């Protein structure tokens, strides 16, 4: 595990890369908009790749807490998968929106929502069954 100072420097790296990329994208957009678009996609990917170490640390912590609290691991796994789907869908839809295709962006969001709902079906069934049990018949 890295120390806090090194992690704090990370934000400077992210800001620096983002500013450079914004500037370069502005310059290229005049001539070739599609190149600027690919540049933006690349920067989005690389910033997330930088954050990945920290994210996996956070997830490890959540897992440890869940194991200690005797939570069923299936639920935690489902929640993590939902977060992953949400992140990917958000990433793609923002980039698509940036490229000027709002319609495709909203379709991606719709797909993300439907898939999340489909993954949450087991949890939802458990909740509904519990509620039905609570209701005195």
């Amino acid at each position: 595990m890295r120390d806090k100072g090194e992690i704090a420097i990370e934000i400077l790296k992210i800001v620096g890369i983002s500013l450079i990329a914004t500037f370069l994208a502005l310059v290229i957009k005049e001539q070739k908009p599609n190149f600027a678009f690919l540049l933006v996609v690349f920067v989005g990917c690389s910033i997330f790749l930088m954050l990945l170490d920290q994210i996996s640390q956070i997830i490890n912590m959540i897992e440890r807490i869940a194991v200690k609290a005797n939570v069923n691991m299936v639920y935690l796994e489902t929640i993590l998968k939902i977060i992953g789907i949400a992140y990917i869908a958000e990433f793609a839809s923002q980039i698509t929106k940036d490229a000027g295709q709002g319609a495709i962006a909203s379709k991606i969001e719709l797909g993300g929502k439907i898939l999340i709902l489909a993954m949450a079906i087991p949890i939802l069934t458990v909740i509904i069954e519990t509620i039905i049990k609570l209701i005195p018949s």
Partner: protein
Amino acid sequence: MGIDVDLIFKIAGVGIIVAFLHTVLDQVGKKEYAQWVTLVGFIFILFMVASVMDDLFQKIKSVFLFEG
């Protein structure tokens, strides 16, 4: 981290050079060549970005327990 900044400048540089070549070839009158230069540059950058995106998706898969 060094590779990231390098690749950003590489993409921007290819973009600027391709734009320059496009303008020059247009001025000379070889419009077809200009189109091809743009296409090749675009595919080159697309390849780089696609490999990075593949890396990203693999990492997301492994972090968010998609494949254990």
